[in-house]
């Protein structure tokens, strides 16, 4: 079998990076983000990136690290509220942003991965998001045409992965990762645990190996929590 497992993140990204490329990244907030691969992107020095990701990390973590080093030229996101450096670069004109509503963004990546160049959604009709987009009426209701997204490279974080590239995600860390995995011309996955052939139950694989060209063991699993909310006692 073609070898998919790489020794580390730098090896897994070797030969895939070029300036001004489009990279899709999994995660929601700081949950389920490919921490190890982001760090390797910082180290690579690749720049002029367009990054498709629901959020943009925080100042010193997640995609915020790539913002600090000015490697990102444009973000395609639904919400970028937790990042001061983002705000500074945006207001100074260094950084471009394309907002996509969260569900539309998720669907655009799924569509791109599934060979669907465009779909209609009611989301955003009559708002700034729909400006310049085709509107079409179906059964008396207006819908906005949204485009599928295909990335040059996708990076995802999974819980478990096997040598065939089959992936399983854990709880709400799944979020955008499955669609991101499908929409990359090449997809690289970092996994918290590498398991052997046949160890993943065929009925429970979230991302089949066809979507994953390379994978490696994640060495960064900090999993920083943005809002640690707790209750005091048992309910």
């Amino acid at each position, binding site marked *: 079998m073609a070898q998919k497992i790489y020794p580390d993140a730098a090896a897994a990204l070797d030969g895939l990076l070029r300036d001004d490329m489009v990279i899709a990244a999994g995660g*929601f*907030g*700081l*949950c*389920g983000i490919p921490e190890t691969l982001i760090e390797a992107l910082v180290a690579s020095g690749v720049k002029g990136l367009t990054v498709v990701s*629901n959020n943009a990390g925080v100042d010193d973590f997640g995609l915020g690290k790539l913002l600090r080093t000015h490697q990102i030229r444009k973000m395609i*996101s*639904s*919400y*970028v*509220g937790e990042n001061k450096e983002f*705000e500074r670069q*945006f*207001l100074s004109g260094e950084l471009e*942003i394309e*907002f996509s*509503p*969260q*569900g*539309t963004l*998720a*669907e655009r*990546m*799924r569509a791109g991965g599934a060979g669907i160049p465009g779909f209609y*959604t*009611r*989301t*955003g*009709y*009559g*708002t*700034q*998001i729909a400006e310049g987009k085709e509107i079409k009426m179906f059964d008396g209701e207006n819908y906005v045409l949204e485009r599928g997204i295909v990335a040059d490279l996708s990076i995802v974080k999974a819980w478990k992965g096997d040598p065939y590239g089959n992936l399983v*995600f*854990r*709880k*709400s*860390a*799944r*979020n*955008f*990762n*499955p*669609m991101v995995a499908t929409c990359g011309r090449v997809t690289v996955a970092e996994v918290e645990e590498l398991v052997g052939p046949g160890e993943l139950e065929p009925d429970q694989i*979230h991302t089949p190996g066809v979507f994953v060209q390379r994978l490696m063991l994640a060495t960064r699993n900090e*999993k*920083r*929590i*943005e*809002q*640690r*909310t*707790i*209750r*005091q*006692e*048992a*309910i």
Partner: protein
Amino acid sequence: MSWTRDEMAARAARELEDGFYVNLGIGIPTLVGNHIPPGVDVTLQSENGILGLGPFPTDAEVDADIINAGKQTITELDRTSYVSSADSFGMIRGGHIQLSVLGAMEVAENGDLANWMVPGKMIKGPGGAMDLVAGVRRIIVLMDHVDKNGVAKFRKNCTLPLTGTNVVDMIITNLAIFQRPTRQSPFRLVDVAPGMTAQDIRDRTEAYFEEAL
């Protein structure tokens, strides 16, 4: 006299029906979860990909892989399922969620909603708000009746960029409650805070509304 945030949330909670799937927005709407009437079982959805949200965890239970759409740590229940964000918004966009309770900056008399861009501030983005108002079957807005400058938030037209057009079904403010039976109907004033009269509400509201107290 005006209603407290908890009273507003409790009033919204009375709109919940047994078996409903519900998405609660960040902020005051989250409080609705504390006021679910006895005998009413609802399943809370979080748009990042959780169906069946549990309460906040104890310190020992905190799991970085279980967060809600507000990025808060949360727990799972015996009914919980996790899905991708695409599948989660499939539930929302496809009309499978019965009710969403959201905050707002402005609501127009035609049901337009503005809640994603604060004038003069950095634009943070719509997140899932546009998807929720476009897809969820019934939208309840919780908001203060007037803004910090005393300006009515229930208006003839929204002045802020819209989140959605003709999407609001019910408005619960700290002073009054408006609702309408269909999205082709005008809003009706159905309740006022203690000590308030319909005229008091008219004085503080720009939108056209009918009275049904």
